[in-house]
């Protein structure tokens, strides 16, 4: 047997599986041991969950409600790591996130026996991996730390079991496939759920697993909940790419008589003039609206490709024969038809086109728009006159016919300042008079693929 074959043989053997299981067992007992410590990030708070929930500082007892921990967390505008003054007590009463780190205590009361150096000489394989554990528990503010620790320990132990299963399942050859834990926010009452995937295995290979999860959680099988892009983004983590997400959520939505709200579903990024060091002021509005739509499909997990640049958009149109090669690098406008073509070419997304011969007719399109947001929930690109915009939702009254449009304006040239963008109406509610009443408009309504 050559060395190569021997390696393969060893790594798939029963013996190997037993050793891996034994190691996971030892990890589980470490997590359940008295040396396990939960450290609250950015604070002097440390909790020993398996030592009768002993904690430091001494003001914290097992019966302390979890919301009290907030006071100890040092935010950027604080100097010391002490308690915040009572005056500055947090106004937040609803959801908040406390980050913890799992640590191991190395010290313990002595005296103990001095170390032994053991040397083993035997041909074998050595496997070392860091397991990126990530657990979440949702509990009430007034629940005690003791309760939270019990839930966390349960979650950690369960995750180690899941990771063991995944590691054994995906053991193939000499490569190490490391498990990866992701959290997904499912519709109430299920809440946050943690799933262990394997790093490096793409979404397309995980379809069977997703089918099982959809069945397990009784979710519809025509929209994704468990793709990597669907992973829950915790409110206190900034997005690395710097784009604003869903600026519309901070707005106060209008109320109409018998009016109902129909909004875009899920997460999109706000793309507008001058971003990415691209000066498209005056001609790029439809491109930006298209980028916003692409960002929606990416973040809902339907596509993996990143938001296309202006050049890539133009190249796609050349590739489908819609434009000449000279189009690439030009500053030519595009319209809804081009947006539809690019969505199809680059993302494989089909779209419906809605045409109105004059802007005043848009006021009567309430039912169609409402239905679109109900069933598809995708952002709409609207082009007409000389402008392009994105429609993120409508408030529409079936009885009175009154309508308001939630508009995301790509003509904004400033920085990613949520306050400014919403105050000045760059993302805001507009009435039917927002449209040029005599111009004709084309709307591109992207359709959501029925996949998981």
């Amino acid at each position, binding site marked *: 047997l050559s*060395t190569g074959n021997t390696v393969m043989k060893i790594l798939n053997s029963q013996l190997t599986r037993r050793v891996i299981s034994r190691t996971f067992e030892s990890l589980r007992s470490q997590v359940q041991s008295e040396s396990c410590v939960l450290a609250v990030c950015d604070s002097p708070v440390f909790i020993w969950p398996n030592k009768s929930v002993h904690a430091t500082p001494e003001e914290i007892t097992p019966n302390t409600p979890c919301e009290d921990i907030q006071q100890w967390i040092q935010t950027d505008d604080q100097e010391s790591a002490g308690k915040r003054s009572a005056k500055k007590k947090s106004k937040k009463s609803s959801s908040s996130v406390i980050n913890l780190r799992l640590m191991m205590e190395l010290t313990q009361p002595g005296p103990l026996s*001095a170390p032994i150096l053991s040397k083993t000489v035997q041909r074998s394989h050595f496997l070392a991996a860091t397991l990126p554990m990530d657990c979440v528990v949702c509990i009430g503010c007034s629940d005690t730390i003791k309760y939270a620790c019990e839930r966390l320990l349960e979650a950690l132990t369960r995750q180690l079991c899941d990771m063991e299963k995944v590691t054994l399942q995906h053991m193939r050859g000499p490569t190490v496939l*490391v498990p990866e834990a992701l959290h997904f926010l499912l519709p109430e009452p299920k809440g946050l759920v943690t799933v262990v995937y394997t790093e490096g295995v793409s979404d397309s290979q995980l379809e069977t697993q997703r089918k099982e999860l959809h069945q397990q959680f009784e979710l519809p099988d025509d929209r994704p909940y468990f793709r990597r892009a669907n992973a829950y983004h915790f409110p206190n983590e900034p997005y690395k790419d710097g784009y604003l997400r869903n600026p519309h959520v901070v707005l106060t939505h209008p109320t109409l008589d018998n009016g109902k709200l129909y909004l875009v579903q899920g997460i999109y990024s706000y793309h507008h003039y001058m971003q990415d060091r691209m000066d498209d002021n005056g001609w790029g509005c439809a491109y930006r609206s298209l980028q916003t739509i692409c960002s929606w499909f990416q973040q809902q997990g339907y596509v993996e490709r990143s938001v296309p640049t202006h050049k890539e958009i133009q190249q796609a149109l050349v590739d489908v024969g819609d434009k000449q090669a000279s189009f690439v690098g030009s500053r030519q406008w595009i319209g809804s038809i081009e947006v539809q073509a690019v969505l199809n070419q680059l993302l494989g997304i089909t779209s419906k086109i809605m045409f109105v011969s004059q802007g005043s007719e848009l006021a009567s399109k309430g039912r169609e728009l409402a239905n679109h947001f109900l069933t598809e929930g995708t952002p709409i690109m609207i082009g007409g006159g000389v402008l392009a915009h994105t429609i993120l939702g409508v408030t529409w009254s079936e009885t009175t016919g009154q309508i308001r449009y939630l508009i995301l304006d790509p003509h904004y040239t400033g920085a990613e300042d949520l306050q400014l963008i919403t105050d000045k109406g760059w993302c805001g509610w507009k009435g039917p008079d927002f449209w040029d009443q005599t111009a004709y408009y084309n709307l591109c309504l992207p359709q959501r693929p029925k996949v998981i």
Partner: protein
Amino acid sequence: MGRGYIVEDTVERYLSKLCEQQAGPVTGLLIGQSSAQRDFVVMAIRTPQSEESTAAGNSVDKELVSEHARQVSRMLPGGLSVLGVFIITDTDAKDTLTTLRQLVFAVENLISSELLWNPADDDVTDSVTLHVNTKTRKTVCRTFDVKDPKSTARPADWKYQSGVCSSWATVSCCLNVNLLVPLPHNKTSAENMDRCLKEGLKVWANQIESGVCLIDGKKLPEDSELTAGQRRNVRQMYSAQLLITPDDQRLPDVVQLCGGSVSVRGAIHSRAFLHSNKPKAKLAEKLLKRDVVSTVASRVQMLLEEEDQSGDKQQTEQLCLPRRVFCPVKVNGPVCVCDYQFSDEGLPEVIDRLKEMLDMDAAEEDLDTRQEMTAEVTESSVTTEPTVETVKASEPKKNNYIGVAMATAVALLATAASMLYLNDI
């Protein structure tokens, strides 16, 4: 302005005695602790006589002095270090200064080559030299910056005082060590094991350095005074806890063929002393962590040095690291030195080494052997009793509001997650 050294009275008596006894130059080491404002000297130790030097009475053996310093460093708990060198001679001051300069640089180079920790920005890099002239009985004190090869002598104050370390604080802990290092699969020579162990120790030392240190159960702000609120001139004892998490650097995952493994498992007692001039919490943490690293590294080193002399390297074996034994220094205060007692040695050997290396007269009653127990090699392998709970899939609690979501992001220790599996070929 130059540095100021506050020196124990006992050092003066020791140096005077050496002046009277010896013909020919006497060199030795000065032991103590440096801080930003002041430096404290607690002990002076003459260089042991080797057979050659008694014959050639007049020359100063640089290698002997630095080797002595290296061995003495191993016997100093945290907070104590070799601060510099003294020489008692009637030779001219200028020549002596040159000799002294060479000595402190040689000592520094040798000692720092063995260190496993990274130097900190607030480390003092000056070494002190003391020249006691037997004829004139004058003492001349100068310092050199040993991190600067071009540094020149700067004058420093040398002042004797009693009770210099009488109210020094002690920080200590008992710490579990659990190292596992694979050995390469080609010839497992002794050098390979040494090198692998050293690399493994370096990784472990980094983990210790970046660990969280609690003092008396609390995480104190770095710049807070350790002894704030305590009565002055009362001896303080603090107990420390060390917590680690390897979340910052995620070491690359690895599967490799290996020829075996080396592990170091057991517990050590670590101790550090802090001067009484308003020491900060971060100093306590720094000194204790350095002691943790050096006590393990020194012992492993000693074991390997012993092993180099014995025979067959190609076998599975278990060796006991020596245990740490403390001995108080004969000054008023908590300061101790330490030695390592191998399992085949008795206390008389420890006493001999204390005399030979530290010129210290100690009796068996003085020794503190209660901090660590002698390691014993047993046949039982390390099997952890797994306690796998049967976790019932609990329904998520129905809340009217999602109050607090606690997220834990964790990367488990590579050595904890490391798996070693055996090939039955």
